[in-house]
């Protein structure tokens, strides 16, 4: 068989390694065969190509040394930084928060886990307590997690020596320049070279090719030059409307912490591409980030009417129903996911909880049994914690205590488990143990208000008013509109003024 044909066929069959091997053979024979050269480049790129929109993650460095954000303290509901202040959104009272200070989301995405703690020190310390680590910069996030070739060593030296290549020669030839650009960006991960090539190429086509503008914007975005990226994307959108460009422009605004601008961009996109799933998803996610669950669910519903197998939308709607006291509705959505073939611990865990709250007790335990049998190391703690919760619900404190201890043994930094254990110990009258558990929970998860409140209430009962006063303030910091905390604080203040 003709080797070129073979290589092409392998490329189409997505057998990239074989394809690269064949191309290398061909190039050994004739090093100047441009077609083969491009094919090898494309195969190498495809091997390492990632959806950089979905896999995007903000690094610690960006979160703390980011200087593009304009408003330092924006009005509530206009910034992603302080979701807790949004008006009319859900609060910790009935929807628990993740360590990021955001309500838990229906699905785990990069970004739903990242925290915005006060200082870099906190940010660096936080990952050590849990199993998730945070990249130091978003650039390194992709390179380390997904391992581009720049981190791997290649036998016989790299395919293309970027420092030796004359980019100007290739820029004028679109058929060569575009694959070369993607290769440099995804395979070599050398943004500077990619940018250089893109600048030359866009000049060569007299700024008429929108594709190059989008690529330029991508380069600027990864370099952190948001304003330049914005200009490129906008200019590209004027020439040609493309979903990807809308999404990328939206991301620029999210990085600038202007969620309303991002929403506008996505809505403009929807005018060109009505009911487009990715755009709708982006909008729903932004609303979720703004803690505007009603709007978020509205868009997720729109997605489901278009694409009835969209896991993210179904899971998020299910979650919303669960936390708005409609476990039966939530159950239907989670069953739908099960029907679609999803079969994992998290789903069974959620199903179990829904069954319990929908009073279908016979199903509850079997769901949790399934969950436990499917659970990986990361989830075990959460499942035991939930079983503990159900045990408390049915009044079996002994079982509950055991489950919570199992949860802690699986994940020694599981703060809610510590808190619940504390409450159980308190019921058994062991005050000192209870206080120790509350303190442990609070030090592990300063974003939770429950340990603080429990601790304050306990101290108040024991007569340690000073400690109670200090701790209750922390509780209100975590959850400003928590009525029992406010009442306790008022009572204490009144008491102190009498003295």
């Amino acid at each position, binding site marked *: 068989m003709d080797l070129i044909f073979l290589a092409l066929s392998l490329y189409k069959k997505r057998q990239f390694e074989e394809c690269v091997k064949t191309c290398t053979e061909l190039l050994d024979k004739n090093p100047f065969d441009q077609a083969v050269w491009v094919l090898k480049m494309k195969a190498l790129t495809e091997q390492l190509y990632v959806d950089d929109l979905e896999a995007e993650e903000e*690094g*610690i*460095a*960006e979160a703390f*040394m980011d*200087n*593009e*954000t*304009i*408003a*330092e*303290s*924006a*009005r509530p509901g*206009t*910034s992603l930084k302080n979701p807790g202040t949004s*008006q009319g959104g859900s609060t910790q009272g009935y929807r628990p928060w993740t360590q990021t200070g955001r309500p838990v989301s229906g699905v785990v995405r990069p970004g739903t886990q990242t925290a915005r703690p006060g200082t*870099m*020190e906190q940010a*660096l*310390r936080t990952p050590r307590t849990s199993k998730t680590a945070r990249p*130091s*910069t978003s*650039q*390194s996030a992709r390179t380390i997690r997904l391992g581009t070739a720049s981190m791997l060593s290649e036998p016989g030296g790299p395919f293309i020596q970027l420092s030796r290549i004359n980019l100007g020669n290739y820029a004028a030839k679109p058929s060569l320049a575009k694959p070369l650009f993607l290769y440099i960006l995804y395979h070599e991960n050398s*943004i*500077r070279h990619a*940018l*250089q090539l893109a*600048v030359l190429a866009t*000049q060569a086509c007299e700024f008429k090719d929108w594709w190059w503008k989008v690529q330029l914007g991508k*380069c*600027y975005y990864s*370099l*952190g*030059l948001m*304003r*330049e990226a*914005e*200009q490129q994307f906008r200019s590209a959108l004027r020439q040609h409307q493309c979903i990807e460009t809308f999404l990328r422009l939206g991301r620029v*605004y999210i990085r*600038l*912490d*202007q*969620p*309303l*601008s991002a929403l*506008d961009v996505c809505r403009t996109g929807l005018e060109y591409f009505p009911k487009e799933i990715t755009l709708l998803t982006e909008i729903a996610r932004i609303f979720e980030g703004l803690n505007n669950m009603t709007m978020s669910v509205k868009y997720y519903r729109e997605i489901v009417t278009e694409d009835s197998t969209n896991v993210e939308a179904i899971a998020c709607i299910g979650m919303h129903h669960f936390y708005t006291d409609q476990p039966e509705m939530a159950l239907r959505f989670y069953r739908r996911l099960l029907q679609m073939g999803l079969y994992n611990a998290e789903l069974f865990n959620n199903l179990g909880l829904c069954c319990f709250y929908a009073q279908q007790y016979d199903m509850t335990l079997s769901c949790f049994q399934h969950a436990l049998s499917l659970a990986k190391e990361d989830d075990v703690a959460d499942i035991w914690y939930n079983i503990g919760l159900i045990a408390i619900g049915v009044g079996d404190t002994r079982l509950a205590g055991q489950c919570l201890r199992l949860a802690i043994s699986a994940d020694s930094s599981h703060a809610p488990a510590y808190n619940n254990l504390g409450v159980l110990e308190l019921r058994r009258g062991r005050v000192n143990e209870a206080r120790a558990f509350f303190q442990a929970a609070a030090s592990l998860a300063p974003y939770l208000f429950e340990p603080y409140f429990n601790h304050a209430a306990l101290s108040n009962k024991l007569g340690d008013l000073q400690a109670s006063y200090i701790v209750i303030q922390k509780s*209100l*910091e975590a959850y*400003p*509109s928590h009525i029992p905390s*406010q009442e306790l*604080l*008022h009572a204490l203040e009144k008491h102190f003024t009498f003295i």
Partner: protein
Amino acid sequence: MAVPVFTLQLNHKLLPGRVTIGKYDGSHSCLTAATTADKVLIHSPHRRLGTTSQMSGAATWSQVNKEISLLSVNRNVSALCAGRLHPDLEQDILVVGTPSSVLAYNVENNKDLFYKEVADGANIIVVGHLSGYENPLALVGGNCSIQGFDYKGNDPYWTVSGDNVRSLALLDYDLDGENELIVGSDDFDLRVFKEDVMVGETSETEVATILAPLRGSKMAYALANGTVGVYNKLHRVWRVKSKNRAVSVLSYDIDGDGVEELVTGWSNGKVDARNSRTGEVVFKDNFNNSVAGLADGDYRLEGRSQLICCSVDGEVRGYDSSRLGSLMEGNAHQDAVRDLLQKKQALLMELRNYESNTRSSSGAAQTNMNAGMIPAKTSLQTTVSINMGNKSKGPHVELCLTTNNETIIRAVLVFAEGIFAGETHVVHPRDEELTSSLKVALFPPRDVPLDIHIKALVGLPRTEQFHVFELTRHLPRFSMYNLISASAPLPEELPQNFVSFFISERIQRVVLWINQNFLLSSELEPESGGGSLSLSFSALRDGSLLSISMHPAGRMAIATSNMTLAGDLVQSLASFLNLSNLQVTAEFPDELAHLGEWLEKVANLQEVRIQLGADLAHRAGLIRNLIVRAEDARLLPDLTSMREWHTQLLEVNDDLINSYNIRCSNHNELLEILKQINLTIQKAARLRVGQNKADVVNLSRSALQSNNLHSLLKIVRTGEA
């Protein structure tokens, strides 16, 4: 001294001149100022008052500092303005200018309207309606150019000005119900633009740093040398000069009489309000530091606005008419008494003088030498002529003063705007050199018509008392050009640099214009026959040649290598002949050659700029990464690797600073060249009149945007694309 109705401390250092006030939510005024830390501070007092707080209960205790919010701009804020830029929104939009960009920002919704790179920088921004444009515009004055952006970020308005723009004001100049744009620039000129046509121009003695609209067609202005005054259209109503510099000028009715006063904030911390008709001070107060800005807005939610003054150290005081009234009345009595006392003094002095005079004249006629009497017939003659100069003194305009008898001129004070460093020039020869004539050399730096006010002290030799002669002489616009020959034959070939055009006017009218605008030893006689006109002048400043020729058929040519001069001549001639439109053909090969060079340079510089920008961003990314790692190592107490990271950090940092410096110089070079290009376009526009002038600017702009050198050259040459 007035008592403020409120004072507060922002605890931020503010930049002078960059203070504005906006209603970002549509109803509450928020003081907005640029801080020295490259941030924009927004002070929202209503947040403390709890009018918008929907937070319940105890949540408010942690919101003490909510009053002040900061916006990070991260670049030096060079201009700041809030205004209703979006036609459909009831909210004010904040427009922030930096040396390289303009950002329009919706504060309420934390949303950009647009962000634009402006190569010419943003020295000053105003927001408002401009005649001929439906939507409000944010007008941005940069280096030699003015751009107007609408809320979508499009720039429908663009024009060039003679030099770097320092101040802008929107004012209904011709009282037609629509705003015109008034521009003050570094070449000391004030220009009035209606749409993109210049409808008025006047010259000041210094850069106009601030322009502020008053009621009707009145406008307040402040110059860099400390002058503050009021113009009505382009006629100056009054002005005062101070040794301090005005930082901010605002019109506000401080005494509650229904007429706005002119409030000025000075660099020494003084704030005063003057009557806008007379310039009389009605109010003043002092800050410890320089004033940063003035604003008026309803800050106490009482339904009327207060005058709000900020100083650079963040102190804010608010005034209104309620406290002032009684205070000023008390002062008014004292002032009246003081005035009358002064008048009395003056009258007493005068009386004493008369008494001594009558005594001397009646007592002894022979001693009149001592008494300083001069003959009644004494008169002072002045002549203005051109002196080609000698070795010690270059060619100049000479003002010669002579008396008609034996009296001597003790000293001469010449007052003229813009010729001397301090507006006034005093000549007082040594005692032994006193004669009856005196010569003053004038070097007008620019071609503007001037009024010279002369005060001469004339008296008899060896007297103590002198008579003061006051007189005013007019210096024509083109006084620094000396007529060489009036009847040189028309050159067969035109010189290299010239403009030529047709006017349907008689030669006599042109001769009249020349007589009025040039300093000639004798007036030119218009030739009665159908002969042509040809004159050559030499410029006193650089000795270059200028020739003006006109055919009887109406073809006129001005040959000079100085494009600005040619423009001035054309403008002056056009206004003399009342031409509404004039198209010319211009040949300035030297200037045009430069233009080509510059455009090429700009392209190169911009390419390098992108590279440098990417380089910088890359290094900044590295630095962030290294800092996180170093911090990580510190938390782990791993001192060896911490030291390693910090060493690397130091190296990258040095690199970063180096590339930053390179970028800086690149940027400055780019700015300089862009300025030159804008200037050339401006000069080319000045060669034309009326609509043709506006066309040149607009066509040049589109040629620049498409980077079409060929068409740009054609536009400069012919005025058409």
